[in-house]
Every structure is written in C-alpha cells, then in structure tokens.
C-alpha cells in the first residue's frame, strides 16, 4: 500500500476513511483530527490551563503528548488507586512518561485520602468499577477546581464514545443522552470536560501510541472483569466493516440532532446542585457521594476485627 498523500510506503491502513498513510502523513492527520475537534466544539480557549486525566493507558498518554505538542498548557493528573497488583506499575509508567517529555504531573493518592480501592471493594456493597469511576471523576474535578484549571481533558476515543452512546441509547437514558459529547461546559462548580480524541478510533490512537514509543503494556487491574462495552464495540466493528464511516456519522448525528432534544428535556426536569458540606464538590445530596463513601469505608474499617 502507498500513502494516499505522499506515495511513500504506507504503515497505517484506514478503510473507514478509504485511505492509508505513511507515519509522517498519519501524524499530520492525527493532529488535524484533534485540532478539528477542538475548533468545532470550542474545547480549549487561548490561555486556558488544561488538566489531563492520566490513567497510564495509551489513550490518555497520547492525548497528553498531542496537546503539549499543539502548545497547550497541560498538566497531568494521576489518581493512584492503591491497588498493590496494578497501581505502582501504572503510576511509574505515567511518571516516567511525564519525565521523559518534560510534562507537569500531579498525583492524588487514594491511600492518603483514606479511600484505597481495595478497601472500597471490601467494605462497600456495590460494583467496584462504578465506585472507582466515581472516585476518580471526583478527584479530577476537585483538583481542577482547587488548582484553577479551566479544562479537564480525558482520552476517550471514538470507539469508547460510540459504545457508551449506544448503551445509553439502548436504555434511552435521557440524563446521559442530554450531555454526552466531546464538550461538557463548565457549570455548577464543575470544570469544562473535554474529549479531544473523540474523532479518532481505538486503532488510530493505538497507532499513534506505537509510533511515539508509548508502551501500552502495564499490569491490568485485578478487578477488571469483562469490560461492559466490549460486546458493543464488537457489534460496531462489524457495522463499521460493512459500512465504513458508520461510527463517526452515528456520533456526529447524535451531537447535531439527538443531544439538543434530550438537553431540552433535562432542562425542564432540572436538579439543583450545592457545594458538598464536607469537600465543596457540587452535589444534590448535602454531602457528596464520594465523601459518603469515605465515611462508610472509615467506619467499617474501624469495626473490622482483622484491621485492628
């Protein structure tokens, strides 16, 4: 295969776009898609400080690298979950990456905050990944607000977004359908949340990571069972194979024609948020969900005979 742009030998075949690129032209294409996302949805304004959530996975690290190359003022935020089997490796990878590229990094340690994930799993009777996700989002938002970042960026790619949108649509979950998208504007004490990689597929971000020496190996989380969206991702891979371009048109069509309608419905339903009495994060319940988790874990840990 030849690169569609420069006719050099191609390395990245992209049937969805009916094209193939060499690595240099792919880098330009990748940057172009990120810039297009930022421009089209007003993701980052000049002079804004961007906090990038870094899990250690290929998507978040690729996003961080690309935004820094585009000249944005980025700082990474890693939440150390305190899981012995996986957290030290993830943290070391993020720290090594930031050091290599001269990027700023902040780390929140859940052990220090009294909420290590193994304790949450042990003492809280609900699916661990939903609690873990909630805790991570809480800390991203909290650090963004406390340290004056206007923007909070995550590495969600097109496949993540389409799988999530599909799941929300299967349930007709009006709440989620009212605000899913690459840009969630700042309001009610939340920073603006953006997903600059939403136009790029999992394959494309994997190629970018590989070509930029971002190693994707790391110890998997011992609690990660079958990821909830994997089945949907396969369905979409079939659909995309049969009619290339389905994913982006489903998603873009939703943003243009679906989301506004759901947003209207939610506006009428509307909940009011006030600062959490304990940590100041916006909540509709007096004390926010994460502070309540913290209290429950502390109480049960104190009452646990094995931990005396």
């Amino acid at each position: 295969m030849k690169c569609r742009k420069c006719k050099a030998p191609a390395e990245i075949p992209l049937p969805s776009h009916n094209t193939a690129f060499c690595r240099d032209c792919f880098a330009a294409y990748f940057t172009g898609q990120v810039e297009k996302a930022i421009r089209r949805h007003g993701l980052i304004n000049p002079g804004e400080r961007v906090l990038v959530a870094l899990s250690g996975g290929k998507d978040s690290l690729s996003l961080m690298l690309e935004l820094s190359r585009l000249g944005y003022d980025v700082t990474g935020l890693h939440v150390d979950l305190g899981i012995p089997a996986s957290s030290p490796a993830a943290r070391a990878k993020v720290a090594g990456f930031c050091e290599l590229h001269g990027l700023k990094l902040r780390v929140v340690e859940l052990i220090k905050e009294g909420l290590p994930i193994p304790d949450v799993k042990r003492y809280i009777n609900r699916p661990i990944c939903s609690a873990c996700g909630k805790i991570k989002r809480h800390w991203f938002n909290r650090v963004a607000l406390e340290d004056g970042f206007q923007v909070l960026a995550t590495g969600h790619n097109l496949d993540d977004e389409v799988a999530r949108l599909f799941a929300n649509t299967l349930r007709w979950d009006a709440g989620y359908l009212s605000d899913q998208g690459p840009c969630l504007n700042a309001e009610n004490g939340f920073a603006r949340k953006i997903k600059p990689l939403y136009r790029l597929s999992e394959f494309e971000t994997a190629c970018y990571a590989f070509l930029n020496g971002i190693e994707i190996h790391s110890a998997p989380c011992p609690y990660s069972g079958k990821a909830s969206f994997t089945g949907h991702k396969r369905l979409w891979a079939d659909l995309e194979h049969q009619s290339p371009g389905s994913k982006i048109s489903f998603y873009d069509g939703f943003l243009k024609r679906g989301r506004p309608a759901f947003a209207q419905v939610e506006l009428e339903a509307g909940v009011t948020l006030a600062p959490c009495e304990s940590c100041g994060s916006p909540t509709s319940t007096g004390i926010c969900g994460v502070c309540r988790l913290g209290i429950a874990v502390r109480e049960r840990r104190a009452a646990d005979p094995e931990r005396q």
Partner: protein
Amino acid sequence: MITVFVEPDNETHTFERHNTVLMLQKRLGLRVNDALIIRGGTLLTPDDRLIDGDEIRVRKVISRG
C-alpha cells in the same frame, strides 16, 4: 517459519507458510483495524508480505477497560 506473538493474550503461534499480512489477519479472525501488525519498529499493511524468519507482534486494540 513465521513467529507471531499476540497481545494482550500473550499467545505465540508459528506458521510454516509465508503469507501476506491479510492472510495472517484472516487466520487470526481479525479485521484490518482490529490489531496493529508490528514487525520490528514498523507497522505492516494487509498487502505486505511476510518472509521466512519474521517475528510479528499482533497487538489487538479493542481495550478492555
């Protein structure tokens, strides 16, 4: 002989015949954009030929998390 290492399953396969990348992908039940096909520091496209002694890394991309 061609040696193929599949990530993240950590499986190794060996194939006698020399094929194209497309044939390898078919054999592993993969579509073009399901996995990176890596030889040394380069990515291969479906029409690339595999040669005797090749060591290929197949990195599946659908993330688990």
